[in-house]
């Protein structure tokens, strides 16, 4: 149980095709019944954090709908709890800012009013289950000013040179840091998760704002590397970083791997999500399902292979669905054939429809489409 506030940036500048056209990345459906943000949010809750602010930028109505009052995370609290902190939009259109410094600065009042000693600031686009108690122990025992969380086996699409790379000495101290380096000096990818004292975070942000700076990694952390004791915590667990349609697809399918599933869905540290009161899934007389993850509320009459099926999906008789990600309430009518398709919510594929993508080019079907 740690005494920290959490801040989740739900909208970094990642666009994943039509999937994020009307929702922030953190609201992306994943793993059959979750949204991306569930992983970092549940990690915080399981570490005893009871004050979490979610900082959206644009298009956060699906995020608001998903998070609701925070009930499912037991964060519908009198003090703190879950708060969505929309950017202040004046009668002009200020407040959306240019970088994550601007977004955090815009919620300065919330940070100031919070009472926890520490603050954890994290992006919302990683699939992971991290125990922040360990991070806090590390932070305290290293007398760290700022602790950055990294991973050396990040499951990502983009090259190392697309990330922020840390150099770390044997005392866990960050000695160098490069944003999108041409020639990465290590494989230590910063997960955009940092822990520091709340007051200190606010001080850093205030200072950066005063200097007209915008990017936390580039303008704050990199510049302070030599002056502060910035330490790096090696998170050895599974991390899937969702930063492209490729990594979305791969990290989805990877959950079919038993070891990955066991790491992410540790019963002592459950991943919470919005409850939909779906019925158990029904299998018909001719159902045939292999190596797939099936959420509740589905009706399976046909064949499913190597796929992720979200809540409330209907798969008709003689339909064949392989290597697909089929989101909530989609309907695959009788006799359809689908291969390598990522299907957003509420899509209907009419009888005997065929949609065949390729592993290198999964087909994306937008929300609500009727094919």
């Amino acid at each position, binding site marked *: 149980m740690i005494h920290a506030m959490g801040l989740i940036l739900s909208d970094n500048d990642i666009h994943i095709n039509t999937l994020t056209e009307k929702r922030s990345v953190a609201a992306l459906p994943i*793993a*059959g*019944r979750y949204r991306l943000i569930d992983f970092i949010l549940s990690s915080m809750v399981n570490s005893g954090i009871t004050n979490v602010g979610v900082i959206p930028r644009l298009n956060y109505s699906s995020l608001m709908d998903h998070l609701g009052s925070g*009930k499912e995370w037991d964060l519908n609290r009198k003090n703190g709890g879950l708060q969505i902190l929309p950017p202040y939009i004046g009668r002009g259109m200020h407040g959306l800012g240019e970088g994550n410094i601007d977004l955090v600065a815009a919620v300065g009042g919330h940070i100031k009013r919070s009472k926890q000693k520490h603050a954890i600031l994290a992006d919302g686009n990683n699939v992971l289950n991290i125990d922040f108690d360990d991070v806090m122990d590390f932070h305290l025992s290293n007398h760290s000013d700022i602790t950055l969380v990294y991973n050396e086996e990040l499951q990502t699409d983009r090259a190392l040179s697309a990330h922020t790379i840390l150099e770390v000495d044997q005392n866990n101290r960050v000695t160098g840091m490069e944003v999108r380096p041409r020639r990465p000096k290590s494989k230590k990818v910063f997960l955009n998760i940092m822990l520091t004292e709340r007051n200190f975070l606010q001080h850093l942000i205030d200072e950066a704002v005063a200097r007209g700076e915008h990017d936390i990694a580039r303008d704050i952390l990199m510049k302070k590397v030599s002056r502060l004791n910035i330490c790096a915590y090696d998170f050895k667990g599974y991390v899937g970083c969702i930063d492209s349609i490729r990594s979305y697809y791969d990290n989805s399918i990877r959950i*079919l791997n*038993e070891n990955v*599933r066991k790491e*992410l*869905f540790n019963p002592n540290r*459950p*991943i*919470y999500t919005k*409850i939909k*009161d*779906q*019925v*158990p*899934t*029904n*299998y*018909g*007389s*001719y*159902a*045939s*399902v*292999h*190596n*797939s*993850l*099936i*959420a*509740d*509320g589905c*009706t399976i009459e046909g064949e*499913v292979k190597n796929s*992720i*099926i979200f809540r409330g999906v209907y798969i008709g008789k003689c339909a064949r669905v392989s290597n697909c990600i089929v989101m909530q309430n989609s309907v695959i009518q009788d006799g359809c054939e689908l291969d390598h398709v990522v299907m957003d919510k509420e899509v209907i594929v009419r009888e005997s429809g065929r949609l065949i993508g390729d592993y290198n080019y999964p087909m994306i079907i937008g929300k609500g489409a009727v094919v």
Partner: protein
Amino acid sequence: MARTECVAMILAGGQGSRLGVLTDDLAKPAVPFGGKYRIIDFTLSNCTHSGITTVGVLTQYQPLDLNTYIGNGGPWDLDRNIGGVYVLPPYVRMKAGEWYKGTANAIYQNIPFIEKFDPEYVLVLSGDHIYKMDYTNMIRYHKKTGAAVTIAVMSVPWEEASRFGIMNTDETGRITEFQEKPAQPASNQASMGIYVFNWRDLKEYLIADEQDPSSDNDFGKNIIPNMLQNREEMFAFQFQGYWKDVGTIQSLWEANMDIIASPPVFNLHDNNWRIYSKNPIQPPHYVSSDAYIVNSCITEGCNIFGRVEHSVVSDGVTIEKGAIIKDCIIFPNVHIGEGAILEKTIVGQGTTIGKRVKSGIRESGDNPYASDLCSEGIVLIKGDITIDEDTEIYKNSMVRTYQRIGGGEV
């Protein structure tokens, strides 16, 4: 504060001894059903969907379990500023405690609870029925007829009528006669144990009934006959649809099978009338490359490597490679070992079935677990026990504590 129009009181039953080992440590309404539900979820969800938000649950036994299952009522949307759901065990009053002597006495003992909400109507329900019903229609009918009590009835097959409380009505729906389990039923309209009372009338009858030392303090045996005798306005409300009393092992098994019949006899896939429950916090279920699943329902947190036919599998169940279950009901967090073969078996929560265990396949005259409660070949295995590898359990068995009884190597 606006008064509450209608308070629902759920009679959550006695010890439920006909359910055998299932109710050893659990109140009957808390017994799992349909993969992710408890029996009481159906009645509670009916209340929520009918806009009834003040609900008392009357239970004799194990109130604690029910209390922690129901918690603040949130899963059923019954976490209300005014009203909500309360578990009401008989509590110690002046000098000593009293069992609820009968269904009517249970309500009688809770008159102060009901009075707090000053309702016009009291809806009396049973906690061990599986059905979906919009009580608003019944209450509207009750208001329209101006009755003192309205009783929900449904048509049952004539040959089964003598197992029920039978209502005879005139052509307007007015109840003219009530026969409890009649040998020669005059109609096939059976009472479903669902009553809408004018609270003022009911309260009078409860108080009078309590003063009658010869009374069983029961709705069917005393209150309803007394009201009939006093020529109160009593109407029958006709219900159409699925309804099942799951008070026996046999009927519990049947009702579970009804939801996986094709087409389902009782359809839970209904977005306008979801059955709420305390959802398990589990990932979607995983089906391996070796698995085979047909005519079944499976829910979150399961890992299926074996063969599942015509069965109901609850959350967190693992069925290993080569295991076969058929016509079974598997309660939450059960582990079924490789090569085990189970037929028509109900496996209690958290039990581990060893490798190559056989259950419900053969009959035997010399069955150490034989039980009168289990018929039609059904096997019932208690929760939280371990059945060792290679054991065979015969049809019509109830396993309370397992002791190795030969039949294979460890």
